[in-house]
């Protein structure tokens, strides 16, 4: 496909040869953007012993895959990964570069952007093209939505969290071109990943849980947080959080829901002691039924949920838990 402007790129990510869901979702959305500006979707995939992954990328919407496939690229290595992507981008001049908001993506993206001397929008919740075909990246802030653009510099770059865009239905009939990448040659060697340890996340994973209980600053302290965790356990729910709760040290960064955390789509969401900040709420817009428990009747969260309980979480939740247990014992 010959195009008038540069391509839409996705920097795909793999772990042990498995393409991450966020990469496929980005390719799916890149496809839409590319069609609008009549250009192609090109994916950069770096790894080792890769075989057949390109077909998956084509099926998701890619036209071309730049494939780096050698032992040096097994896992993310900062200097060599950055070097390959920067050189490739300088050569092919993409119009747009999208990267998943994974921990690796968040390190790689700013390095690439700074070296390409271009802008990078963080953790967008939507990406659209305006009438001038300029990429508009939507970022929640201050109870509203900022539209961020990069009018002059190219490529236009953005990172996007998992779940922001749907996973595209694979179309096995699609094919494309695989461009093998040579080793980049001399790269400085000042940093090396020695070891990567994957830890089983405790409890139920947020992304797939039918029920999510999320806690915020209103927990007050560790004890208050434990009360919220108890509710999650009783409901067999995944436990999520807001940034203030993470900042207070009650929970890990991995539990954070929202723009710079995870995007979830549960059947039931219960927000406890949180105020309904947009940065958090954009992570759960897909929930079927939403409940808020907060002692501040004026809290904006009560305008964004289906059911509200105005009460102190430490006082209410133990009663709520008892009643849930009672209900279950009556109905089983």
């Amino acid at each position, binding site marked *: 496909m010959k195009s008038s402007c540069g391509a839409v790129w996705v920097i795909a990510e793999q772990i042990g040869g498995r393409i991450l869901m966020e990469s496929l979702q980005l390719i799916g959305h890149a496809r839409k953007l590319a069609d609008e500006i009549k250009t192609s979707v090109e994916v950069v995939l770096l790894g080792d012993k890769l075989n057949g992954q390109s077909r998956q990328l084509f099926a998701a919407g890619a036209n071309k895959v730049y494939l780096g496939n050698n032992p040096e690229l097994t896992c993310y290595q900062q200097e060599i990964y950055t070097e390959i992507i920067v050189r490739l981008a300088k050569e092919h001049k993409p119009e747009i570069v999208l990267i998943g908001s994974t*921990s690796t993506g968040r390190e790689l993206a700013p390095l690439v952007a700074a070296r390409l001397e271009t802008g990078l929008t*963080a953790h967008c919740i939507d990406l659209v093209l305006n009438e001038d075909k300029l990429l508009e990246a939507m970022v929640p802030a201050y109870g509203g939505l900022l539209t961020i653009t990069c009018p002059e510099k190219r490529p236009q770059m953005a990172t996007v969290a998992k779940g922001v865009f749907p996973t595209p239905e694979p179309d096995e009939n699609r094919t494309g071109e695989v461009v093998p990448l040579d080793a980049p040659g001399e790269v400085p060697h000042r940093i090396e990943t020695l070891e990567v340890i994957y830890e089983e996340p405790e409890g139920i994973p947020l992304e797939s849980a039918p029920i999510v209980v999320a806690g915020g600053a209103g927990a007050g302290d560790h004890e208050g947080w434990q009360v919220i965790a108890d509710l999650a356990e009783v409901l067999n729910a995944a436990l999520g959080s807001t940034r203030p709760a993470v900042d207070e040290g009650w929970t890990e960064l991995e539990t954070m829901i929202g723009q710079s955390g995870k995007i979830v789509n549960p059947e039931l969401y219960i927000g406890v002691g949180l105020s309904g900040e947009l940065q958090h709420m954009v992570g759960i817009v897909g929930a079927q039924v939403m*409940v808020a428990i907060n002692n501040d009747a004026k809290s904006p969260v009560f305008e964004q949920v289906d059911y509200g309980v105005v009460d102190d979480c430490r006082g209410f939740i133990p009663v709520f838990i008892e009643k849930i247990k009672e209900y279950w014992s009556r109905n089983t």
Partner: protein
Amino acid sequence: MLKIVVCVKAVPDPKQERKIRINPVTKTLIRGDIPLVLNPLDKNAMEAALQLKEQLDAQIVVLSMGPPSAGNIVKECLALGADQGFLLSDLAFSGADAYATAYTLAKGIEKIGSYHVIFCGMASSDSSTEWVGPEIGAFLKIPIVTRVKEIIETEGEWWKVKASLDNGFRVVQVKIPAVLTVTRELNNPRTLSFSGIIEARKREITHWGINELCVSDDSVGLKGSPTIVSNMASIELKREVEIITGTREEKAEQLIQKLVEAGVI
């Protein structure tokens, strides 16, 4: 002697951030009178530097870019135990995105001169991009490690650190000079002490503007920012809410009833 640079940011007090709102008509920010405080994760960056200083022969330089009122957070870092403070403040620096911010800070670090390690908080509480640390590294052409949660080895040129990943962690060996962005897990930041505040009287904050940094005005601030905020909208994720009332027991029972009816528990 080990020279440590800590980059810090003055952010609106996160506890009061809710007060900042977008005016839906004028599409400008209503800032209120929220005080500027030290970005929470930058406290962990400061603590990392202070702990190194306790173990090694080290000097800590604090660097910030911001309005003149950001001087108070630099002063706070001096009171925590930093040796020198620099504030990059100029009207020309205002409106900077992460790229222009990192560029300006990198220029500041170059002017400070020698350095061995640069600590930054992983992200700021107000913009949370996580870009500034890595981009400083890119501009200075030195390696970076993001999300550092443990510093394992600091002997010699090759340091070993543990850094968080989405579902686990990695152990990284990095040659200094390097930029390390830190997470909350790294340490427990100390609190201010009165004698520290008194000690800091002896240490002046150096103010640098665009002339001192020898940068052109189209490479900093709004002009030097590749990205712009082209629109601000107040959005509403409104749902029709039903507030459940009654005694605690009644509220709990009613809520369960509603959730059962909705088929979600």
